[in-house]
């Protein structure tokens, strides 16, 4: 059954969302490794929303979690500045430490560890959903 979390898009609320999602994952016996990958993805997505969506102000974010046996879909919805994190080119991960730029690594991690990542802007809302199979 789909569950919803609504709160302010702030970095210090990310732990709340993680706990909320983990509770849903435990109910469908999600393995620990997949759960940690999902927790990382939550951190990456919500950090972006918290830092950029409503800057310099703040606003709310809705998180929908739809746990099923063998797969979970998590959807993040905000009403901030339209922003598609998937349209940026991936950072060069072959550079040395000295030349390395850190931007874009978060969304790259999400794309590589989740089974599907989708973005759409609809009715004034950024809607980003991630799906993980386990």
């Amino acid at each position, binding site marked *: 059954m789909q569950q919803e979390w609504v709160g302010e898009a702030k*970095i*210090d609320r*990310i*732990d709340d969302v993680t706990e909320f999602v983990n509770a849903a994952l435990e109910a469908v016996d999600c393995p620990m*490794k997949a759960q*940690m*990958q999902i*927790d*990382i993805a939550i*951190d*990456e997505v*919500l*950090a972006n929303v*918290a830092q950029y969506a409503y800057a310099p102000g703040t606003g709310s974010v809705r998180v929908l979690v739809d746990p099923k046996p063998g797969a979970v879909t998590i959807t993040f919805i905000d009403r901030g500045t339209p922003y598609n994190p998937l349209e940026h080119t991936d950072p060069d*991960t*072959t*550079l*040395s*430490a*000295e030349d*390395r730029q*850190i931007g874009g*690594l*978060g969304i*790259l*991690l999400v794309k*590589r*560890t989740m089974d599907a990542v989708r973005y759409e802007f609809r009715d004034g809302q950024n809607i980003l959903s991630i799906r993980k199979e386990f």
Partner: protein
Amino acid sequence: MKINSTKNGTELVLALEGRLDTMTAPELEAELKDALNGVETLVFDFEKLDYISSAGLRVLLAAQKTMHRQGSMKVTHVNETIMEVFEVTGFTDFLTIE
């Protein structure tokens, strides 16, 4: 996240416990700010670290750059989830992981 810091001469061992993420990465950054003075060997012990996100990678990269100039740095006891984060992001290319 908990940071357990042990200094032996010019070696500094930082054992992290919990999650190194957007919320906690600034704590590590603050810890490293002055702690690296005079350090020639920096060791991150990840035995009790559950996972790391890109905010944590940013701090590790900064530490690597500093230690590149003044000595060496290694990361130990990396779990499977964290190793995959290092692999996906290419951090395995320049980190010393034991």
